[in-house]
């Protein structure tokens, strides 16, 4: 069996080399960030996200739809299940399942935000389809500011506290992009063409 073959080959090599592993070094000391929110916004803007601040979750439908209106007709809207109970217009079709080819826009709820890198952390689960993060043209992400954490390490700690690693965890820094044609950065490769953040609290 190849598993054995590979492991035996590794053990043989390590015994031959006779190099002792030095043991893992200590964790990186957390770099203090003076103003996490300012840093988060600065980085997210650098990554081409737009944002606005909301006093409460109730404002999400109006603000999300207003932003989407500037981008054209959203048609059917994919919305994360925890946000679907908000006051969306009665005549709007709101879908909470996996995104399909017809999906143009999605409104999602972030698991956390990372101040250091201006990144949104999304996780998979029955109420948060991963396709919402990649299939739509336009992506609105709602972040509760109490979920804004200083760095990745703090996110790992929060995750460990939930007990289980989700199937997928997406760290998102702005709309998709590519530099593959003549190194010219072009926004809107395969994922969303624009990402708008609604910062609540």
């Amino acid at each position: 069996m190849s598993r054995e073959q590979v492991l035996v080959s590794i053990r043989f090599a390590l015994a031959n080399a006779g190099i002792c592993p030095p043991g893992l070094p200590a964790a990186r000391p957390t770099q203090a960030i003076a103003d996490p929110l300012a840093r988060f916004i600065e980085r997210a803007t650098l990554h081409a996200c737009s944002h606005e601040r909301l006093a409460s979750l109730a404002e999400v439908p109006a603000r999300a739809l207003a932003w989407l209106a500037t981008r054209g007709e959203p048609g059917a809207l994919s919305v994360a299940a925890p946000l679907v109970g908000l006051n969306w217009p009665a005549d709007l079709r709101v879908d909470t399942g996996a995104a399909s080819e017809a999906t143009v826009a999605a409104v999602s709820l972030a698991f956390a935000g990372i101040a250091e890198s201006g990144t949104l952390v999304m996780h998979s689960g029955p109420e948060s389809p991963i396709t919402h993060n990649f299939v739509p043209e336009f992506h609105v992400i709602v972040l509760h500011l109490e979920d804004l954490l200083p760095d990745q390490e703090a996110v790992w700690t929060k995750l460990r506290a939930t007990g289980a690693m989700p199937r997928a965890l997406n760290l998102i820094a702005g709309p998709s992009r590519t530099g593959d044609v003549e190194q010219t950065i072009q926004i809107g490769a395969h994922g969303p063409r624009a990402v708008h953040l609604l910062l609540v609290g």
Partner: protein
Amino acid sequence: MSTATGNFESRAALALKDASLQKALGNFKPLFVAKRASAVAELTDFEALRERAAQIKNAVLGELDIWLERYAEAVEAAGGKVHFAFDAEEAREIILRICREAGAKTICKGKSMVSEEIALNPALEAAGYEVVETDLGEYIIQLAQEPPSHIIAPAIHKTREQVADLFEAHHPGRPREDSVAGLVNEARHVLREKFFKADVGITGGNFLIAETGSSVIVTNEGNGDLSQTLARVHIVTSGIERVLPTLDDLSVFLRILARSATGQDTECYTTISTGPCRAGDPDGPQEYHVVLVDNGRSKMLGGKFRDMLRCIRCGACMNHCPVYSAVGGHAYGWVYPGPMGAILTPLFNGMAEHYDLPNACTLNGRCQSVCPVKIPLAELIRTLRSEQVKAGLMPARQRTLMAAWGWVARQPGLYHALERFGSRLLRARAGKAGRIASMPGAAAWTGIRDLPAPSGATFLEQWQQQRGGEQ
């Protein structure tokens, strides 16, 4: 396993005469270097992070068997399957079997250097699958039927016009696009349909996490995520050296990878995948497989080139290499170009077949000064050269000349006499200009630039004169 004919020298000579390649490389040179420099400068502890990254890798490599077993257990606990492949052929067989059992027709691929290394696409295509590379750069070279010329920017050798020509030829019924925005949009539309059609999604794995049994990919386009999320079966291909103990270790690497690679502070998407979709999940693959490829790595672990296994495939070494930026990636003859390729290609594919790769290096050392995991690339290249000499691979003419020089260098009187003679001869040939415009036996140099002439007196003479003056 080489992807090209001839040797490095002949391919490099052709590359230097290739006008569109030179145009593409001209765009390339300054960008990556400047962007990396500013991205690195903003971190006050970048050097400490590099050091720590190297330490983590060294520690893991020193007990690689243990970490791999822990990782495999964690993957299986999350419902995934781990397959070990001893060589490229076995890796291809495993992947073909998974695709066959899944009843697949269409396969979407995210960027993976291991899949290039094991020549996966030709094997899948020969078995009748429709294989679609979805990273834009990989898609372009798939259409052109060429190997990648850079590990993170595979189509860097193509100009915009060439991409437009390829798209026009391969996308019938679509108007020709000439702008970058138009071309990117065209690829988006064409590939969208494939993502939704795909049965199997194959991605690489930048990192594997033993703590959680996760694989990590880092991308800008979102293509890897669409490939792995929309297909029924997700296959991760990765080298056995990619495992890290914990998520906290991952954070060290995420801080240096994008900065070193593209000069971004972070790539757009970092995705951590753990097993197949769970009960109640509305999307995600039903099967999750990891193919761990050895293909010579465990042998490297026990030898002089173990340091090379720290490589995280960022591409910084080639971005800073004067040889790479003059001739591009294809001259290196295999999937790994630049300084890391000059080491890996002879190790994987034969020191004799790729004799001139380590010998084409100027040993200027810029690559190792930027390598985020502190691989002593220039030293390894030097070691490779001495291994080649020990194996009797140095050409006879060169060996004779080196032996003759070695003999002369051990006779100080003769050596200095010859040095004085040579120095004066060159001085005389240069005349008033102080530069030599043509020189028998050195036409390759003087054909394109003058040879600076020595000052006349040898170093030793000048040294003695100056010391004499001081006393």
